[in-house]
């Protein structure tokens, strides 16, 4: 009886704690969503209030590209930025999958000279500060004509997406019993067929998780596009800067822009939630 009461108390405490944690992490998102339906005047009112007349003006401004402020109207290209984000993130992940999956397989299955060193060097891209390479890259990109192009940015984005995919997928390949692949070879299939028909399908959950994570990381990147492109190719993360205007900061539009930019990753994450958690924990254990 005593035990039962204690566990009931423990349950209650756990519920309260979970609610607190949830509030802590979800409140900013909740507040941003609220702000996106408010005018700048409502947002800046002190004290802030939960009661206001919702407006869709912020979204209309973003979608039409026409931002009306107190001092006049301003052209913004937020929808273009959103499109750029989609193009850059998808293309980067696609290229990384194309390069990273065979590389991950090689690292998982074969021991070769300097193999571990190469794998580690690729991983080290994840913890080297981007600013370290940005300035030289800018100069080279201008010389090579890659400045302000999708191709140039997708290339640089490989620093973010490739190591992630390589290391997570490698762990998944290592988990597949080599005997399964051996059996397929003995059946009479070549190594390429074995890779495509056995290894890749069996590592699919890992590939999905890694691709999703890489997509999110690419989507959230700010600094590469800020330096290496103009507004023609810049993603939403950089595009949001346009709302800091001469006549003040357009909090409403920024909030609406954030909500829009959150949606694709949110949808993706919800769709692949199971894979995501699996991939994250595996990456942590296998590293």
């Amino acid at each position: 009886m005593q035990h039962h009461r204690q566990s009931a108390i423990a349950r209650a405490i756990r519920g309260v704690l979970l609610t607190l944690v949830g509030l802590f992490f979800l409140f900013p998102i909740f507040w941003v969503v609220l702000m996106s339906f408010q005018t700048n005047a409502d947002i800046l009112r002190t004290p802030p209030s939960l009661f206001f007349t919702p407006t869709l003006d912020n979204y209309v401004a973003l979608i039409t590209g026409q931002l009306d402020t107190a001092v006049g109207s301003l052209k913004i290209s937020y929808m273009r930025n959103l499109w750029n984000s989609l193009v850059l993130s998808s293309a980067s992940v696609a290229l990384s999958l194309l390069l990273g999956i065979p590389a991950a397989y090689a690292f998982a299955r074969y021991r070769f000279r300097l193999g571990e060193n190469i794998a580690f060097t690729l991983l080290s891209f994840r913890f080297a500060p981007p600013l370290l390479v940005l300035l030289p890259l800018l100069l080279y990109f201008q010389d090579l004509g890659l400045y302000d192009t999708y191709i140039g940015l997708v290339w640089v984005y490989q620093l973010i997406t490739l190591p992630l995919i390589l290391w997570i997928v490698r762990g998944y390949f290592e988990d597949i019993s080599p005997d399964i692949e051996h059996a397929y070879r003995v059946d009479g299939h070549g190594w390429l067929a074995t890779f495509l028909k056995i290894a890749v399908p069996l590592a699919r959950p890992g590939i999905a998780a890694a691709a999703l994570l890489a997509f999110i990381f690419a989507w959230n990147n700010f600094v590469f596009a800020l330096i290496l492109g103009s507004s023609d190719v810049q993603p939403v993360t950089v595009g949001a800067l346009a709302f800091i205007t001469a006549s003040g900061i357009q909090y409403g539009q920024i909030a609406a822009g954030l909500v829009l930019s959150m949606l694709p990753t949110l949808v993706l994450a919800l769709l692949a939630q199971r894979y995501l958690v699996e991939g994250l924990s595996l990456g942590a254990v296998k590293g």
Partner: protein
Amino acid sequence: MAFLEIRNLTRRFKGKAVLEDLSLSVERGETVAVFGPSGSGKTVLLRLIAGVDRPDGGEIRLDGVDLTEQPPDRRDIGMAFQNFALYPHMSAYANIASPLRAKGASEDEIRAQVREVAALLRIDHVLTHAPRELSNGQKQRTALARALVQRPGVLLLDDPLRNVDAKLRYEMRIELPRVLARFQTTVLYVTQDYREAMALGQRVGVLEGGSFRQIGPPETVYAEPATVDVARLFGDPTIILFRRRIESDGNGAWTEFLGARIPVGAAADAGAACLVGIRPEHVQVAPAPIPDAVAVVLDAVTPLNVRTLLLLKDRDGEEIVATCPEEDAARFPRGHRDVWARIDPSRALVFDDRTGLRLPSGRI
């Protein structure tokens, strides 16, 4: 030249030889059981033959063709892995069809052959199942069907009955020879169980310490083991061994055990240490005196399933293990008592104590 010819095969891992100078010839259609304790390199041998591992030396020839440098997909070999190694994302049907698909067979042909082998192995009712939906026995049969379906030149079976339960193991031990005979294929059968090796192999190769200690028909390996180590690997309870000395007189060399004189062939030196081995079923025990028997003390009676195990002590206190058929066991009520025991000297084996080699038996 034999159908499958392995010469001086060597494989090292981190400088340590797992197989060393191993040679084996297998005739077409023959079943050879490769038997040895765990870690003796049985699986490594199969992997080298299948081509999923590369030897550090030696060569493998199949029907006169050197396979040593060939990749696994060009070897005409079927292999059933100990852990089954089924493709988890394919149905049992697709698993079995895999070797035929690799050969580019037509769908009609594939369907006919998969059905045939599945019917033979009695898994035709589970062909649409994924491997995770199969019982262990069905998994093992599916793996076997996949190895058999393309009628390979050589079939490698890596302890296929290891991971199935006892009942199924007995069933398969009876069924396998029938299936293998039907396919008339050459088989290398790896096992850790001497009974399985003796039941399934036309010849048994005893692998220990990286090479074959003895290769021969099961009866020969059992009755005339080449070394004391080979003798020890067969039988349950295993052979009993006693240290003795070689004696010599005008009638030749001999040694003694349980009152019986065991002649030893000419090569033996008088005074040299030797080991006398006798299998427990060859110790005859009686409750009353019988000719040539020695009085011993019966210490314990342990019924096993078919034979009963008797623990004896001779007057020097040496422990002797004997077995007798279950129905004879009624003559030995449990408890400490005096009984009589004798051996047939012609059944006794004598080994050199130093080298472990069996000494030739002398004339009785």
